[in-house]
């Protein structure tokens, strides 16, 4: 399933991540997933939230650089090698993964993986064709 994620640029100053999360909390926004990447001085935090548009606008108003982009969410099988199956079909289809992160779905308690690839639409199609990891939207956005 294609989902929307938020990416926020963080100047590597103490408290910047906290400020961003606090801004969302103050506006009653729930975060279902969060992943932090750092390089040299800077960082980027990615989040999946229950109201992407509202989040984008309140973050922007708070003075940070924020973008909304697409990614693919997929549920992992409970069996060993659940992640391997997913990566294997993507590799066979020549899809490149730029990054990925995982979180736990609320209703199922299952591990969910978020994939950012060089071709989001193709990724979703391949996963579907291979019967891999359909996801309940409620699990993603906590609605």
């Amino acid at each position: 399933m294609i989902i929307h994620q938020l990416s926020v640029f963080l100047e590597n100053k103490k408290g910047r991540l906290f400020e961003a999360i606090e801004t969302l909390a103050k506006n009653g926004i729930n975060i279902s997933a969060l992943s932090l990447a750092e390089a040299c001085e800077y960082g980027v935090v990615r989040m999946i939230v229950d109201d992407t548009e509202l989040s984008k606008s309140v973050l922007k108003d708070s003075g940070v650089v924020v973008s909304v982009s697409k990614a693919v969410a997929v549920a992992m099988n409970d069996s060993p090698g659940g992640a391997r199956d997913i990566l294997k079909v993507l590799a066979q289809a020549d899809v490149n993964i730029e990054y990925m992160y995982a979180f736990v779905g609320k209703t199922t308690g299952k591990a969910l993986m978020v994939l950012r690839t060089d071709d989001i639409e193709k990724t979703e199609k391949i996963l579907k064709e291979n019967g891999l990891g359909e996801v309940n939207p409620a699990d993603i956005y906590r609605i």
Partner: protein
Amino acid sequence: MIRDRKIECMPRDELKKLQSERLCALVARMYDKVELFRMRMDELGLKPGDIKGVEDLDKLPFSYKKDLRDYYPYGLFAEPLENVSRIHASSGTTGKRIVVGYTQNDIDMWGECIARMLNGIGLGKDDIVQVSFGYGLFTGGFGLHSGCEKIGATVIPISSGNTALQIQTMIDFKATALCCTPSYAMYLGEEIERLGVKDQLKLKVGIFGAEPWTEDMRKKIEESLNIRAYDIYGLSEVMGPGVACECEYGQGMHIWEDNFIVEIIDPDTGKVLPEGSKGELVFTALTKEAFPLIRYRTRDICSLNTKPCPCGRTHIRMNKPSGRSDDMLIIRGVNVFPSQIEEAILQVSGSEITPNYQIIVDRVNNTDTLDINVEMSEKLFSDDIDVKAVDRLEKALVDKMRSTLGIGAKIHLVNPKTIARSEGKAKRVIDNRKF
């Protein structure tokens, strides 16, 4: 529209004759009334009669900004104060302020110079001009104001500052033209975009000057305010804004040669350079009464051309100064112009970024340091913000600075609107070194 066809389109040989007559009269008047000029002439063994026309101009002594400080406040005036109707002064960042005076005729001449520009870019009595240059000792506000009065336009003398009020006024009063500094125009454009009120504007044109700006800034301003943006040049020592102005074709600024003689010199040797060469701009103010100047060294670096302009005006054109040697920084022994840094940022960002940046120079353990803060923007990323993309951007800026400036700079990517913006001139450079 050409306001004064006889003067503005005068054949160049006639223009030269007019300049020659005026120069001879000026030299005689200044020799009589300005002590410093008389002393310098005497030192060179020159008498006013030795100057027969513009071809003798290069015999005359230069004048410098330092002269204005040394003879502060009235020592270089050529008229007694009873004939002086207005004073302007510049905020010298170092040392004493510089002070200039105007007679009523001077103010009229100044207004006329600006009126030529305003008519040229299509403004007239039906227009409503919002003058957001500061009114006060700074020449911007009053200068544009008198130009607007000359063409019979309706002036809104709002002065600088209070952005919300500026935008509200622009909308409510149906302003058709805006005058301010280019950095403030950029800021207004951003605010207007943020408020989503662009479609309520009636602006057609903007007149921007008093600080250096780039073609990329022009594009950005034109887009965000939905106008044509024109450049105006001047400095208070010579008169104020309007010494040179773009015409409707925007291909260089016409210098009003009936009032000013311009030369390009080698800043090191003082030798006059042939037309088209890049060098220091030097002005002689032919017609000013209270504060005339002969061969004033502006420290601005640019080039000139006398090629015919499509508008039909014959007056010489100057391009945008590529740097003011006053603003030049010497960092680790290398000359660095803030405008070079700005160009480098724009080249890396592809002009999509708001070029808001700040240069911080300091000295640590006897070595100069150069730090450049650059504000980030969503527009720098295709859609997904990615640490790799941030890294690439930082590296591209570092590389570009090194290749452009010849020295290394540390780049800091900072959040939007975290660099202080003054509502008049942008504070681009902070030099913390103690000399």
